[in-house]
């Protein structure tokens, strides 16, 4: 079997297998030869997505003690001294000022739920990702990697999730257990796309 026939045969077999198993991934070659191969350097420069397991976290580290100083300088003006305050000014579009970053644990099933980093966010890595990507407001992208680790550590400490001296780095941060880790449920496990949905559930 020549390379091409082999390739062709494998492709069809693959497509068939995948069609039968309903898997989403379809392995095949490019049909249009358009676009340019992206270099690893290029990807590294752009890729700022951090997954729940933190495998993209860069080398570096920080503690809450270090974070407290940076927070006072770069964040407290908007988020309050401790992070539990609500900024009085209307700084943003989404319902006005940002909500508190700290507190709220135990309120989610009450009549006044307080969603914060500590009470609501499922993974500690989201905090790292968001601080690097979006904060401080108006000057996003200006923090160093170590500053982001330190600020993440500070907010986790303020929320009582880690200790003041705990070092946050690519290894320790993904292991931090967030209080609301199990607070997220799919609407109905038996629901599949195309099926009529149970009332009120909008998957």
């Amino acid at each position, binding site marked *: 079997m020549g390379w091409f026939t082999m390739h062709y045969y494998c492709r069809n077999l693959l497509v068939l297998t995948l069609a039968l198993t309903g898997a989403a991934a379809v392995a095949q070659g490019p049909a*249009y030869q358009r676009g340019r*191969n992206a270099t690893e350097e290029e990807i590294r420069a752009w890729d700022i*997505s951090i997954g729940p397991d933190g495998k993209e976290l860069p080398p570096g580290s920080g503690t809450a003690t270090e974070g407290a100083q940076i927070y006072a300088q770069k964040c407290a003006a908007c988020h309050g001294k401790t992070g539990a305050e609500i900024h009085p000014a209307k700084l943003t579009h989404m319902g006005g000022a940002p909500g508190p970053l700290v507190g709220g644990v135990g309120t989610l099933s009450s009549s006044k*739920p307080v969603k914060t980093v500590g009470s609501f966010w499922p993974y500690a890595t989201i905090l790292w990702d968001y601080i690097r990507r979006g904060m401080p407001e108006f000057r996003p*992208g200006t923090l160093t990697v170590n500053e982001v680790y330190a600020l993440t550590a500070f907010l986790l400490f303020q929320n009582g999730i880690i200790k003041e001296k705990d070092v946050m780095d690519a290894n320790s941060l993904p292991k931090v257990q967030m209080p609301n880790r199990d607070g997220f449920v799919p609407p109905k496990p038996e629901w599949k796309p195309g099926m009529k949905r149970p009332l009120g559930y*909008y998957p």
Partner: protein
Amino acid sequence: MGSKQSSRRRFLKGGAALAGLAIGGIPRAIAQVPRVEKADAPPGDSRAYGHRSRFDTSKRLDDTHAPHGMTTPIQDTTGIITPNGLHFVMDHDHMERPDIDPKQHRLLIHGQVDRPLSFTLEELKTLPSVSKIYFIECNGNSQPPRGPGKDSVQDVHGRISCSEWTGVPLALLLREAGLKAGATWLVAEGADAKRYAMGIPLTKGMEDVLVAYGQNGEPVRPEQGYPLRLIIPGFEGNISIKWLRRIKVVDQLYVPRHQATNAELMPNGKALWFNFQIGAKSVITRPSGGQKLPGPGFYEITGLAWSGGGAVHRVEVSTDGGKSWKDAELQQPVLPMAWTRFRSPWTWNGQEAVLQSRCTDERGEVQPTLAQLREVWGINSDFYFQDHFNGIQPWKVTPDGVVHNALLLS
């Protein structure tokens, strides 16, 4: 850096078998012809780019819920297409809209793929494209408003618009990049200052998602994501990433901050994940809140219906507060995940009347009443900020002809 050169590089890398696939393919990117600027059409000249009549004053309004949002005057738009200048705006997580030079813009596709690819806009436009009519609705649309003066259909339901979007199917681009086994989710990211990002199930990405460069016959408007916007039909608008510049294929759900904080809290304290799809929904746009009927007589009741789960199958209209219902006429075309215009004749006798519409989609999902939604959601203080609110909207016409929002909130 034309596509010719880069594809030659890939040709050399990929070997003869891959080249075989390219033979007889799509013509190469059209060479750039220098544009002749004509001096007789200065910017803003309506001979070069037409304006509407000065008597037409219909406009977007500031969204009272969201200082950076603007609502669409859906009481004024006709048919099922929103004019580009009136498309609602809801900018997430950035203070300044990016001003992107399309020649500099790139779309990067990487992650769990065999060939990470970077596309220019011109390269994308040479690929097979499709044009589709889809609505985009903000997940926060239709939350029952509070306070006086929040009566109009624009205030309550104006965070939705419907356009013809033209672009390359995302599935095609993902196939070009080659999905690796284990790929299950996507992360899409914009080129705004805060790099707004959202996760999308790969199954949806392979189904009907578009990488759009066209909106109603012209380039996507800057406030809609110029030069590229991801269009995710039927799903809440906040994941249709504007200024799209990066798609990362991943092997598990990544939860960018907005996805975590948007998760809908239930009364039991648990939050719903994968809460993407817009429910079956409709609203009467004329007569609607804030309008005034000049006197008894004939009126055509008209409005819009849509569902994130497919095509609208049926719209019923009631003029007696839901005691009796009558099928409305559906204006063709009736398209999946697009607005459907409905019409129903009505003669107003001058008495108090409550007008409402009820949508059933092709899956048989029926638009719920407020009471039904309450049962599901429970009543907590967050209730009136419930996302994905698709309850039936009643409008009350009082004998003076004034139309009021009659969604009872107590």
